[in-house]
């Protein structure tokens, strides 16, 4: 009988759950998609409920719950951080509860079986290595902090995985990046990605300033100069010394971004790439493999990943799409499987991340039929649907695209996406301002048919997870997806893994000669990516998306009853507001 493991990450940020059956991943999802609370850290009940339903299991069928950190080891770090006193924020004390994971697993999930605790960075490492397809690899994990480790070095060989060195808190590349993110007026653990997108607009004028905050040491070690950081006090990330070093006050959120800020972002990117490259080279001296696995939140910096891959000693690179804490659930499950089962985890490269819930045409029809909405039913006529959507996008419309199982990880990959014409010069500003309602500088990413990728991008291998950047070399002018430095973060799409999205791309290609679509996540600013048809409808109504495709159903904006925007406001007023802002804490 197959061994069922529930992998869980929670209580910090980006809670998630996954279900592994006999070493194979069956389902995975982040809690925020269900709760609609951005970065929801709470025990992922809804995600677990989904995972069980997807696997056709009850909680009683679970053999083991795998937890993605060691709570008592983390307590040591929390106690150390809390010194000399806890007077600032008594709430911090409530998070110092090493029994909380077990208590909640027992009391909230109702699970009475064994719990495997996996060290945080080991979970990160496993989340990459066991899904890489590599028979052996070097492993580098970099994040803000786990229990104590902020950076870890490891090796994987066949089914075995070990970490042999770590850098200890508070010395943290991730927290350096987050500190500057905060200094630039963006939200910690949410804004880092924006800083990465801002970097190409700037000049590396402050590289030396930033180098001064970080000192490389022997081997895999480095040290932050804590004079520049205040995150230990948990009130503010940066200190006055850092402000003095830059000579400019920190940017207030939502205020204008100036060249100075862009230069700082650029400089930060340079320093990040430097240190990562250096530590990657060190890792190679310890693990002289051709393969490198990257994990941890910093591994979401795909520009740095590209740099490390291009200039580093490793020929092959794998980054698991949910490289952040959500992916810890996968790694914990994998490690638990290794510890408890004789069977191996299949050594095959993760080829797709469509691990979330899907909704059938019947379910969607039932929802739509209960509303006064006018919709077109394309059941049994998918090709006609794809042609219609392609034509609409070609005419300048923005489409909400809801198909199949939801992606796991921060990127939308054609299951919960907003799609548009990448050739349209106004499209980027249009979507930023009116659809996503987000900062104007942020670029969009393209999806391209895999068979056509080489014609348009400097990409030598498939990149299905949108985790690498490359140069755009297309004969087509695509301002909407070409960043200011002529780069793009590309997703390659093939018909085997992503049939309906590939079919749409093909329809667009046949119509326009362009095998590329602008693909951004289906959500509005500060909201999680949509999960259910109702979420998609809500986002559709409240944004300037022109049309919505829910499986085989096509809905134009004009078909939306006038009152729905108002109606959704009423519903939102009457329900508990989602907690979208929390004071960031490492507790």
């Amino acid at each position: 009988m197959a061994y069922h493991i529930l992998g869980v990450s929670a209580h910090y940020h980006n809670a998630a759950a996954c279900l592994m059956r006999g070493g194979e991943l069956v389902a995975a999802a982040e809690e925020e998609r269900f709760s609609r609370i951005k970065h929801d850290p709470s025990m992922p009940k809804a995600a677990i409920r989904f995972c069980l339903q997807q696997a056709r299991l009850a909680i009683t069928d679970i053999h083991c719950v795998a937890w993605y950190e060691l709570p008592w080891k983390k307590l040591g770090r929390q106690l150390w951080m809390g010194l000399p006193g806890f007077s600032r924020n008594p709430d911090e004390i409530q998070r110092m509860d090493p029994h909380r994971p077990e208590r909640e697993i027992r009391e909230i999930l109702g699970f009475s079986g064994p719990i495997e605790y996996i060290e945080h960075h080991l979970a990160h490492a496993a989340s990459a290595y066991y899904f890489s397809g590599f028979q052996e690899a070097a492993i580098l994990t970099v994040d803000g902090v786990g229990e104590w480790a902020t950076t870890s070095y490891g090796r994987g060989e066949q089914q075995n995985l070990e970490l042999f060195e770590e850098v200890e808190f508070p010395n943290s590349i991730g927290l350096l990046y987050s500190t500057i993110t905060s200094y630039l007026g963006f939200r910690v653990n949410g804004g880092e990605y924006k800083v990465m997108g801002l970097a190409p607009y700037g000049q590396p004028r402050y590289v030396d300033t930033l180098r001064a905050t970080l000192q490389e040491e022997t081997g895999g070690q480095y040290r932050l100069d804590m004079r520049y950081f205040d995150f230990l006090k948990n009130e503010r990330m940066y200190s006055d010394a850092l402000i003095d070093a830059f000579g400019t006050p920190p940017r207030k959120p939502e205020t204008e971004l100036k060249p100075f800020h862009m230069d700082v972002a650029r400089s930060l990117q340079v320093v990040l790439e430097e240190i990562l490259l250096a530590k990657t080279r060190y890792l190679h001296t310890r693990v002289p493999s051709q393969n490198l696995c990257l994990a941890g939140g910093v591994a979401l910096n795909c520009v740095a990943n590209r740099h490390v891959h291009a200039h580093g000693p490793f020929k092959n690179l794998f980054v698991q799409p949910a490289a952040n804490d959500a992916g810890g659930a996968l790694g914990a499950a994998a490690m638990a499987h290794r510890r408890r089962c004789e069977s191996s985890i299949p050594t095959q490269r993760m080829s797709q991340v469509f691990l979330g819930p899907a909704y059938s045409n019947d379910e969607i029809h039932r929802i739509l039929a209960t509303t006064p909405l006018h919709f077109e039913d394309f059941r049994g006529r998918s090709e006609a649907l794809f042609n219609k959507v392609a034509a609409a996008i070609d005419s300048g419309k923005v489409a909400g695209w809801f198909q199949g199982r939801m992606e796991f990880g921060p990127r939308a990959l054609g299951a919960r996406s907003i799609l548009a014409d990448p050739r349209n010069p106004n499209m980027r500003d249009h979507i930023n301002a009116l659809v996503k309602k987000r900062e104007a500088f942020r670029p969009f990413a393209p999806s391209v048919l895999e068979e056509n990728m080489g014609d348009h991008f400097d990409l030598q291998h498939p990149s299905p997870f949108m985790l690498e950047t490359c140069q755009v070399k297309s004969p087509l002018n695509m301002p909407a997806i070409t960043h200011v430095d002529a780069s793009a973060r590309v997703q390659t799409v093939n018909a085997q893994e992503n049939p309906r999205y590939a079919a749409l791309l093909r329809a667009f290609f046949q119509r326009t000669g362009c095998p590329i679509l602008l693909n951004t996540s289906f959500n509005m600013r500060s909201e999680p990516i949509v999960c259910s048809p109702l979420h998609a409808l809500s986002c559709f109504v409240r944004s300037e998306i022109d049309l919505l495709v829910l499986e085989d159903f096509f809905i134009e904006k004009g078909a939306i009853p006038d009152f729905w925007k108002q109606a959704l406001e009423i519903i939102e007023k009457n329900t508990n507001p989602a907690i979208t802002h929390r004071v960031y804490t490492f507790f």
Partner: protein
Amino acid sequence: MGTTPLEAAKTMANLLANHLAFANNVPHLLESMRRLGMFNGQMDLPTQKNIAFPHFAPGDASTLLGLWKPVEKEGQFCHERIDTDYFNISRWSSMERIGPKSSKKRIVYLGESVARGFFFDPHFNPVAVMEAMLAEEPADTGYEIIDLACNGQFMQPMLKLAYDALALRPDMFILFAGNNWLEPASLWRETGFGMAEALRQGEGVGGINRIIETWLEERTRAFIRQLTSLAETHHLPITVVIPEFNLLDFATDNIAGTPYLLAGTINHSLWYKTRNKVPSLMQAAKYSEVEPLTKQLIELDGGTTSTAFSLLARCQLAQGKKHEARHSLERSRDAMLWCWPLLTPRCPAVVRDTIRKEIGQGSPWLSMVDLPDRFTTWLDGELPGRDIFFDYCHLTAKGTTMVAAAMVETILERLDGGSTDFDTLMARAPTPTPEMIGRAHLFAAMHNASWGQPRELVRHHAHQAAQTPHQVELATRMADIASRCLPGALCEPFPEILQTNDLFAIFRLADMGERRHDLLVDELTAAFQKSSPELADHVHQIRLRELGIARTGVDLLNPRQHISSWCQPETDWWEKTLYFSAYTQESRFLLVCPSRSDNLRLALTCRIPEDARSMLQIRINDTLLQEITVSASWSTHRLLLPAHLLVAGKNEITLVWPVVISLKNPTDALVNLMLSGGISPPTLFQPLGEVSTFRAEPIHAESLYG
């Protein structure tokens, strides 16, 4: 810039963590140390202190008053309503403008939804009635009432609004409030630790009640004193209207969870056995046997359930003991303050008594209209019921008129030293149209159903509505929306609701959400059967489509299948746990079947709190299907549900739990949760059983489980 802890401290911190990892309650341990000042030398202990509100300054020409912003037009200072969303607009009066102070005596009126005239507003409300009564007064200058009452108003915002409203140069204030003073956020912030301590000390929920009552008393006292200061400083008479509660007809034992009995006196079986004896004895009119049983219940549960007092009250009422029954009903109303998230708004006795005491002994500038006292007089000693109240506290036309007359009496007395006969005032009152009354009854039916009231009360309001003209369309839309599985605002009939511009209807129906509404729908269907004979079939078809057992089966744990009211202890369970916890002896699940149903298969995974193997009954439409053995371990049971036991449309599957309560002391875990802010008092109910999966599937469907 702070000092970075020494590297050496890391080792020590890790050692300490290893020790603490064996401690049961690390947060509580550390929190206690913090409060004792062991970390920074500053103690932070909850002390018995007088609650003081922030100092409010009088409003001036620039102060926003609720929805009305100050404007100057042609040299005159007035207030105009701001442009805001429907939700805000619906909470306040519909007046567009507050004009400048004239020669008329100006009364500023503040309060909560009861003061708004919930269910009637804006067509008919206490202010409209008062104005009509005052219009016929032979006063030299006349009177005007500025209506700043607001649905969902709380104590401090209302106090601030009173200060702000000084900018209107009032001659008098009337505050009609006290139902919303059990404010969750403030309560938790100011007493959470104390509640956790009460649990740790073994006081049970009685200790929490004690803390809440003390808190309410202190806050009410502080509130009255602040009003006194306002009145005396500005030489303004202020009248506080003490709300009354629907003692006779609003069932306060609608929260039917298991009692939280103190450790050491846990005898839940005896409590249930005692309780279950009462109905047949009442039916047989054996009241002398009922009373001691109810008193035994009160002794067992320490007076912390509404059930015991409600049963006692029914017995007393049956014997004509009205005074005793009033006392029992008030205790029933107040017994479960510890369960505040599940309670309707209400003015507990402690608030009423504190107002009485403070105003009775206090400043001559303050007066009160004591509605509990007045209603006793008006009703000749009878208890107030459905002819005065639509629900727990919102007034009918008759109730509104009585209360308005009492307020006008005090206006005349305080402002002009005059008086007009109560009956004369009553006779001047306008009456709402039959349509308004019908509409109000319709929403009362809906509201009472949402609050878990008995079918009879819902039926009463549905039938009252059906007897008035022009309600069939609204009733039809209400039943239709209630039968669907999307928020009301997204449902097909909703555009027609919007076109009415009836904000009350819009908001009440907009978020009719994912719960069981079949009680309301069935009563509406029955009440309007003559005027809308097709309604029954219409809702049946919707039910079939939306809730019916599909080809692949139905998840009976979906809240639409079993959560029927806001006061159900299990409400919102799916946001808290992965499994359903049953806090009542019977858990009822809706199963909708087509007209020709095959045999079905039930898959049930459940457990009970204690490892005493017991029998769980599974009933279908009150027929026993099977008894299964359950224990403290999860067990999955697959049962056949034969087609001949099913009916077309609504069926009900009932799980009847054995009364087995965990004897483990839950205090440590509860205290932990309380301190982490993760507990809400309904968690204090002790579950009788837990259900992890519960599905019904056609017999030939591929099973979703195993």
